[in-house]
């Protein structure tokens, strides 16, 4: 009967459901948008959370890290960790006989620990240079090309695979030469890569304890806590997005309230007849609530279908993988949006239903 009653005022039911549809789509797709954003960001972050970088503290007149510091760091790091000391210096560099520019040159002993080659081979690395992909692209460099570093001609051994955008070890814009070609003894930074973020955190504290016990000799930069903060930020953004979306659901709820209220006014006499022929108050209540629930349910289903569609599009453009929409957090958002939609319509159907049920049949039939 509820179903029939809805088909009577098709247009109005449609509009009310549309409100729910929009609400559900808004919540679900904004939620999915947030998830996609977070996902693509985490992808860029990569293993940043597991990494830490140790710098000399120039404020305390420590300009470089000594071999002893390196040994201390290796001791503090866990057995599975990779510790890569790096030397840097600024030198005039010329690519393809262009004008010389001053660039930071990185000296690395075992580049295979940090990088993989896109073209060419990384190890053995005793001479020549490795360039990051951005550098290679900008100057059209390939393995075998020649560049000039500080007046000396150097052969490119390999172009490196792109790194994680936010990683301190990201090689994309770097020129790397063997550490042995550096005359200076000390190191300007040390990368430590642990297997987990928690381990990285412990190692960072260990390094601080042993190297900074008398004076602050080093900075230890760890991105793990940064990653946590970023994720918290994303949670907040998602909550705000969902909050905005629920406003639309609220509006939808009000429109259902309106539809149901109109229909109780319109069907006053009918409801009076129902009561007269022996329908109890709760029977009327049930019929009316059923109508509201049906509206919410249909709207919710349509909304879910639409938002999965929207999710496919969002993930296609934001993550580059449309199928990424079928991930757990998305399912959660869609489910929450759906149940929220149905709940909204039930709640907003409650008052009109109660109003319809509690009217005296005598009054209703008097017209």
């Amino acid at each position, binding site marked *: 009967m509820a179903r029939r009653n809805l088909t*009577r005022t098709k247009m109005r039911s449609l509009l009310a459901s549309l409100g729910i549809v929009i609400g559900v789509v808004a919540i679900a797709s904004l939620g999915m948008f947030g998830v996609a954003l977070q996902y693509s960001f985490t992808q860029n972050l990569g293993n940043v959370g597991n990494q830490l970088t140790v710098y000399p503290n120039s404020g305390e007149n420590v300009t470089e890290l000594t071999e002893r510091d390196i040994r201390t760091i290796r001791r503090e790091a866990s057995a599975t960790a990779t510790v890569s000391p790096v030397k840097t210096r600024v030198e005039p560099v010329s690519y393809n006989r262009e004008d010389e520019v001053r660039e930071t040159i990185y000296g690395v002993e075992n580049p295979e620990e940090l990088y993989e080659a896109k073209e060419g081979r990384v190890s053995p690395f005793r001479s020549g240079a490795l360039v990051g992909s951005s550098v290679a692209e900008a100057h059209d460099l390939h393995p075998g090309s020649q560049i000039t570093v500080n007046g000396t001609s150097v052969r490119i051994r390999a172009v490196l695979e792109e790194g994680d955008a936010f990683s301190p070890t990201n090689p994309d814009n770097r020129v790397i030469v063997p550490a042995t070609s550096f005359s200076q003894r000390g190191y300007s930074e040390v990368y430590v890569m642990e297997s987990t973020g928690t381990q990285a955190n412990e190692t960072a504290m260990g390094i601080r304890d042993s190297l900074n016990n008398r004076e602050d000799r080093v900075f230890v930069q760890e991105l793990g806590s940064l990653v946590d903060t970023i994720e918290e930020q994303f949670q907040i953004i998602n909550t705000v997005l969902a909050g905005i979306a629920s406003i639309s659901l609220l509006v939808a709820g009000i429109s259902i309230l309106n539809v149901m209220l109109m229909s109780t006014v319109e069907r006053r006499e009918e409801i009076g007849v129902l009561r*007269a022929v*022996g329908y109890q108050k709760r029977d009327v209540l049930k019929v009316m609530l059923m109508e509201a629930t049906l509206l919410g349910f249909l709207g919710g289903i349509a909304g879910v279908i639409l938002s999965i569609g929207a999710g496919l599009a969002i993930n296609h453009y934001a993550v580059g993988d449309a199928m990424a929409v079928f991930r757990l957090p998305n399912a959660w958002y869609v489910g929450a949006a759906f149940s929220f939609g149905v709940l909204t319509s039930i709640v907003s159907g409650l008052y009109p239903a109660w109003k319809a049920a509690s009217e*005296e049949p005598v009054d209703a039939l008097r017209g």
Partner: protein
Amino acid sequence: MTVIDAQGLVKRYRTGGQTLYALAGIDFALEAGEFVSIMGPSGSGKTTLLNILGLLDTPTEGTVLLEGQDVTGLGDSKRTALRKRTIGFVFQHFYLLPTLTAVENVEVPLLLDSGPQVKKRARTLLERLGLGERLDHKPDELSGGQKQRVAIARSLINSPKVVLADEPTGNLDSETGRQILDEFRRIADEDDVAIVAVTHDDLVNEYVDRTVHLVDGTIGRERKNGG
């Protein structure tokens, strides 16, 4: 057998500072199979009396016995249940549900506990009232007389003891009105159902056993029909 026995019915309405007597002491009894009309000018309390007899309303004073049971002080849900069991209603404006077919409209009172036998009974009733070919028509495909027949069938679906009709011929031309009154007469005689019709229409009086005239909430002259 007395189906309804109402004694000393008073219905007062308080509007502003004034007290309005819709009914001012009415005794009314109804036998099974009796067809009674209640006539009177507007505001004479006809509809109020009908509502009280139909357990839609409660009297301010007086008692109503339905099949010997005192139903005066019953609460809403008990009255509703009694209505469902023993009383059928026919209204001037038919009040059929526009989304349901004729059969479904007849089933409405028992729709929530409907079964195949309800559907069958609804069909039988409609066929008896000459609507056998219009079972699956929606109300807007039916004429006024046909709608009222559907409404009568609906009032009979629960095998009531009493059918209360409020201006049953009010929206019909006299030819159709006669047909409807014929139906009522037949139902009263064949099914032993008591029928009370509130009306302005003198036509009704040709069909009833007796007519009760209400004037200002009291019973005026009562006329028995011979036949």
